[in-house]
């Protein structure tokens, strides 16, 4: 119930922000931390994460007219802009991408990569296997295992269907397993 009420008030704020961007402040305050941490996990330092977060909100303010309520939360739209900003940054600066890993998440990832002999991979091997993934594949894996997002949420952020997100994730895990078994 309260979630629904929040959504209605958020919709109202978005409509107000479409008319006057000063109303965007409420959305900025609400989502700054989430977007900042999302970018910090993928960037070199806090200053860079802050800069990219600011860019994300500036782009959001510039393009809020194009945001439509299609059942997706506003945060998914912001995450998508943040991802685009991050990709633009790495492409422009030709730097290596940063990945943040929670060590606690590695056993769970290892369980997701089943082998014929029920073998559990070491953390080092798992980390090494991340290097065979493309940036898109890595983004999927990051969201699922290190940020514990649902398939639904991943689909919303990446602009793909839930089924597609599941299939893609399955392929990523298969790719990692093949690499580790052959290594």
């Amino acid at each position, binding site marked *: 119930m309260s979630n629904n009420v929040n959504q209605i008030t958020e919709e109202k704020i978005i409509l107000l922000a479409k008319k006057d*961007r*000063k109303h*965007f*402040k409420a959305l*900025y*305050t609400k989502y*700054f*931390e989430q977007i*900042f*941490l999302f970018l*910090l*996990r993928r960037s*070199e330092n*806090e200053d860079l994460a*802050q800069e990219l*977060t*600011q860019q994300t*909100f*500036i782009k959001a*303010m*510039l393009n809020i007219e194009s945001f439509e309520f299609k059942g997706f939360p506003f945060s998914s739209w912001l995450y998508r802009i943040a991802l685009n900003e991050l990709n633009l940054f790495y492409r422009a600066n030709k730097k*290596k*991408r*940063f*990945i*943040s*890993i*929670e*060590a606690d998440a590695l056993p769970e990832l290892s369980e997701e990569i089943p082998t014929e002999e029920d073998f559990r991979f070491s953390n080092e091997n798992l*980390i090494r296997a*991340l*290097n*065979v993934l493309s940036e898109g594949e*890595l983004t999927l894996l990051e969201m699922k295992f290190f940020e514990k997002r649902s398939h639904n949420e991943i689909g919303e952020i990446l602009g793909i269907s839930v089924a597609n997100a599941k299939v893609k994730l399955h392929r990523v895990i298969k790719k990692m397993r093949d690499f580790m078994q052959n290594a």
Partner: protein
Amino acid sequence: MHNQIMSEENKYNIKVNPKEPSKEEIRKRMDFEGAFKAYTHKAYRTPFSKFKRHAPKNRKISMLIILAIIVSILVFTENDEGNKNLKEDKIERYNHNQENLDTLKLD
């Protein structure tokens, strides 16, 4: 366990258990005024907003352009009608001359 795996063979820089700033530290980094300023600066640089900003001056120029278009259309159609009349005149004169010639031949 807080380390960073960085080597030449690695495609990515991998941070394991990175330190996250506190909520207070994140809050200090919030700057809506700055973002809003940057937004207005960017928004005002688009051609449409430039047009909107100079609306009174643009209105006069637009009126002048529209007036010039209307005048040129009128002049063009007037010329066209004049040309048509000239052609009709010529045809009429030609027919009249032909008739005169025919009557002369008959005589």
